[in-house]
């Protein structure tokens, strides 16, 4: 009986891990800035949302993604709602990709990811610069997108392991 309860607990914990990671990343802004590497930054939330909503949107529901965007805006002091809009655009792209893909392929996903982050960051930069009249460092955004794109396979590898574990727990 206790083993059954333990299994259910682990199953729930693993299932909600992507959501937990998303809120952790927006509240903490995981940026490794203490390493003091000039220009190094990447958007962990973009990788996380793209991967998990593409894989299966059950792990990250859209309402939570919307809330995470609001939290992100408050933490990094952007106009409230902008990150939510960008995160939901990523979800829209992944939903479209899911609908048109018959056999998933990593390279296709990676290229789609590049297109998505460039689109999302362009919308963010343009709206900040033109609508909200905030001076933005375009180069920083570009470098951020570059590192996010490069680091995508590393996180895919880690998330695949996690996804397998969740699937095993689900089958148990």
């Amino acid at each position, binding site marked *: 009986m206790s083993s059954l309860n333990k299994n259910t607990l682990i199953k729930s914990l693993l299932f909600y891990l992507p959501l937990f990671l998303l809120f952790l990343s927006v509240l903490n802004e995981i940026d490794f800035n203490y390493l003091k590497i000039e220009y190094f*930054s990447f958007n962990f939330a973009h990788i996380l949302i793209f991967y998990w909503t593409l894989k299966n949107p059950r792990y990250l529901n859209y309402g939570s993604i919307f809330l995470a965007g*609001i939290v992100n805006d408050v933490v990094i002091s952007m106009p409230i709602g902008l990150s939510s809009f960008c995160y*939901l655009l990523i979800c829209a792209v992944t939903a479209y990709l899911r609908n048109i893909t018959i056999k998933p392929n990593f390279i296709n996903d990676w290229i789609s990811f590049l297109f998505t982050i460039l689109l999302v960051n362009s919308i963010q930069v343009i709206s900040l610069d033109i609508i909200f009249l905030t001076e933005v460092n375009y180069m920083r955004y570009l470098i951020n997108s570059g590192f996010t794109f490069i680091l995508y396979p590393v996180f895919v590898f880690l998330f695949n392991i996690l996804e397998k574990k969740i699937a095993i727990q689900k089958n148990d």
Partner: protein
Amino acid sequence: MASSRDDFVIAIRSAFLKKSYQQKFSLLTLIFLSLVVIILGSFNFKAIQYIKIGVNEVIYRSSFIVSIPENYFNDLNIKIKEHLSFYDQYKKNEIELKKLKEKKLSNDFLILENNKLRELINETIQSKDVYAKVLVDKDSPYLKSIVLNKGSKDNVKIGMAIVDKSYLVGKIIEVNYTSSRALLLSDLNSKIPVLLEPIDIHAVLSGTGKNYGVIEYTKDEYKQKLNNDKIIVYTSGYGGLFKPGLPVGKIITNNLNKDDEVNFFSDFRQLDYVKIVAYEIGSGN
């Protein structure tokens, strides 16, 4: 051709409108909701402001708690580096201390003289200090700012100066009930009036989004004088926000791209406690 267009439309419609996989809201509803939030956020209605303050308070405190492990690693990293350079730093400090002791004697005299001269022209500078802890100091590529644990409850107001030891760090841009956000001098949107000494030239110090600032809107002759002097940047007091004479940084001439960088005296990545200061400059006139 028509069939492929139909497929595209079906895929798009399905992506935006379908409420699959236990989703409570469709994607389109949430996208519209975020657009509504963006539009409402840009209005200055009282109700929206109160909601914003409430949301900020909760999220800032949560962010502080969530950031504790990362901050611990940050502190550990700094401590290890300090231990490694302990002896070299001690030797440097010893030499610097000797020089500073010599300078202090003449400075004490200048301070007394300055106070007497201010009394003669009936000018007084009074300041109200509030000490604050830095709750969140996320070095994001978008904004260089810090969140402090003092707000309107402690009489913090927009525009107040943020000082680390005696060095200017930034100014308050957002005030909530028990917290506030300060824009750092290194942010792209930060612009403050400064005085370059000893060449006595007024200028504007702009942030760059990096860990240094640049000098803007000044006389061309300052470039010629730059090679000869070691230039210190102080606040000029123009605009009335900051007291004149607050040290900000020193100019480092960069020969490679001809941009003169202002190296800030305070390390913005290591701020734990800061002083929020409001200055009242009184004049006999």
